[in-house]
């Protein structure tokens, strides 16, 4: 069985020292090993942004695509080979701005993909513009007077879109993050894991300290039941989305792959493509 070291490669990330994304990378590597994956069975599909580089820093199959489209690419991979474990990942701009349409529909579709968002409330790669996750009043290069748009709540959106797995974590809490990713990987359906992953270079407001002060860990509520959808929604609103842990999981709903009538149970990619003459003749006969 592969250890987390086997999910490491020899590429030095070009993230700034102290960037939250390092821990996300480590957590993915650990979680992959902990759930018993081999590098060739994992595909990490990422978007564009500082965070999007992550697929190149994990020793597995990886595809670094285009801005905002990690999810549809990842879903394509999963459809093509359901035997693979598929992780999609990227930034808050990638998933909640340009790719928001895909996020909502990937949640609705519920293909078995684990989506890890590195949420730094800013656009890192393009050097510090506002993101849908930026707080109102947040001053950035593109909002010199402060952001005047409402901050998006991806957790509420996920819940209302029918998510079957919603979690949130903080990149310094490697233990919790690793565990949540493991749970996400094991979940049979779409899992959203939003990770507060501070941008130390362009976000001087939402810093490590700021997060430590503002987040509540669901462990503080021993009675919290993550299978209760209403309780989950309430908790998200009560905490203004500043909570970490497994927020909601629905193990009853089947994944998309399991609901498609006739869908092959093994990886489609391994199928022999030839069509029997009989089958072909039947198809042709329909046009007479």
């Amino acid at each position, binding site marked *: 069985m592969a250890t987390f070291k086997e999910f490491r490669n020899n590429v030095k990330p070009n993230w700034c020292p102290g960037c939250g994304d390092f821990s996300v990378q480590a957590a993915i590597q650990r979680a992959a090993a902990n759930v018993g994956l081999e590098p060739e069975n994992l595909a990490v*599909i990422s978007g564009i942004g500082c965070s999007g580089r992550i697929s190149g820093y994990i020793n597995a199959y990886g595809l670094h*695509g285009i801005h905002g489209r990690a999810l549809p*690419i990842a879903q394509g991979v999963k459809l093509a080979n359901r035997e693979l474990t598929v992780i999609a990942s990227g930034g808050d701009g990638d998933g909640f701005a340009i790719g928001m349409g895909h996020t909502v529909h990937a949640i609705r*579709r519920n293909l078995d993909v684990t989506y890890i968002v590195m949420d730094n409330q800013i656009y890192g790669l393009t050097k510090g513009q506002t993101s849908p996750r930026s707080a109102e009043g947040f001053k950035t290069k593109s909002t010199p007077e402060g952001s005047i748009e409402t901050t998006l709540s991806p957790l509420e959106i996920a819940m209302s879109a029918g998510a079957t797995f919603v979690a949130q974590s903080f990149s310094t809490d490697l233990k919790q993050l690793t565990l949540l990713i493991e749970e996400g990987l094991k979940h049979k359906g779409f899992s959203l894991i939003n990770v507060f992953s501070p941008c130390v270079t362009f976000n001087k407001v939402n810093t490590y300290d700021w997060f430590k002060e503002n987040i509540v860990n669901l462990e503080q509520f021993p009675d919290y039941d993550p299978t209760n959808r209403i309780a989950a929604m309430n908790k998200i609103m009560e905490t203004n989305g500043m909570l970490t842990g497994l927020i909601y999981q629905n193990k009853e709903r089947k994944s998309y792959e399991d609901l498609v009538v006739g869908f092959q149970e093994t990886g489609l990619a391994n199928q022999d493509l030839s069509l029997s003459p009989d089958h072909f003749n039947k198809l042709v006969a329909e046009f007479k």
Partner: protein
Amino acid sequence: MISQLSWKIGGQQGEGVESTDRIFSTALNRLGYYLYGYRHFSSRIKGGHTNNKIRISTHPIRAISDDLDILVAFDQESIDLNAHELRAGGVIVADAKFNPVLPEGNNARLFPVPITTIAEELGTSLMKNMVASGASWALLGLPLDVFNKAVEEEFGRKGAAIVEKNVEAVKRGADFVLELAGGPIEELQLDAADGKQKLFMIGNEGIGLGAVAGGCRLMSAYPITPASEIMEYLIKKLPPLGGTVVQTEDEIAAVTMAIGANYAGVRTMTASAGPGLALMMEAIGLAGMTETPLVIVNTQRGGPSTGLPTKQEQSDLNAMVYGTHGEIPKIVIAPASIEDCFYDTIEAFNLAEQYQVPVIIMTDLQLSLGKQSCEALELDKIAINRGKLVRELPELETHQLFKRYELTEDGVSPRVIPGDKGGLHHVTGVEHDETGRPSENSLNRLKMMDKRLTKLNGMLIRDAVRADAPHAAADILIIGMGSTGGTIDEARTRLEKDGLKTNHITIRQIHPFPTDLVKSYMDSAKKVVVLENNATAQLASQVKLYVGQAEKISSVLKYDGNPFLPSEVYKACKELS
């Protein structure tokens, strides 16, 4: 006796025009006639004038005709809009319900038949289609038992009582019109056909069937006219083969999902029309840059923007050839018949994997939606070829990556798929080295650009340029693409009668442009006419760019939303000669 005629049915959208056409043509197909259909419709579902025209012939035919022999009208508007097409002595079968009148000066023979009344008497106005097609059938003097068999097949599942009612509707329509006309119309008696049932389908179905035969097992798409039939066909045919169709949230998702699935080893396609193609542009570049196979069907319709969404046009050529930022290798092929739709789709999947590039299959609305007779299709004519896909791999050393972008002689690198041990590598739209790792090194950049851009050098598809060139030196060489070939050939017959020597080539490989082949036909021609359904002569521009000889090229363009008629092509060529 005549060898071909044209029949048209018109009415409000949603009142049975489509089904009348379907039943009438199914029955004709049973007799072995060659058929070529054209649908005139708008994007409304109910209401709005719509008409379907069928050319019926004893020999293969691939064009609509200039004129019309029989018009079936469900309302006065259908008469007013279409009666001018009737040739002298043509016939109108109209629903007596609306007291049909001939437009002033029109001398067609009008037969008011109580189409609605008969249908209602038999239980439901839905049976209008049966009464109308029965009347048409009778005027042609065709055997009623053949028609009844077609009815039986259509309604058999619904039980004997329903079949009987419909047969009765057909008979009453037939009887009524024969009484009025005093028997079948003499000038409308067709020569007997060969009695062999032909395949009869629309281009989109040919593409769908080709996809299944070509090993496509997934499709991701967003509905749009005139592409939707492809997904609607495949959603029925892929699940029995283990695959499926995903209706995505938009065309960006459709194309990127297809890229993901192709990357992971499944032949996957998407299909759209101009607006969707526009949304796919960035992703097409990703496929080009990452050398991921991809098949996209673009069924052209009237642009720009929403344009004429249900009308004929060929105006996306530039978008397909040049679309996406930066420079990538890309193949654009243009089927010109139903048979092509089938075979080209299989070939497109092969090309995509052999060259590891995006392949766009371009059709136009008339080819995608016009229902036509088609020759027998063979499954084995094009074998599946997955190019340099390798599945058995030696193990990698620690930190060693598979050279997915290895520099090779032909520019095409071995391809592996996720899941296979020994194949680990990275894929990125960022410029990268042989293992797929990002690299900004200038030397590497040049090598990789050259590798990708030379992959298609010398590539020629089957029948890249299809020629009907009987003359060593032609007065006119007519160049076309897509659905226009049959119309061009009919015009040529008339031009040849006038003593003009005409050659005809259909460019089927739009990009990379088959320069030498096209040039070989142009060199010997006095004049070249490039015929296309757009306003800016996009195909002619390609010809001029790659072949030159601009001084002898003229364009014949049509962009009013309708396909060319043979007479228009004839006139245009005649004027130029």
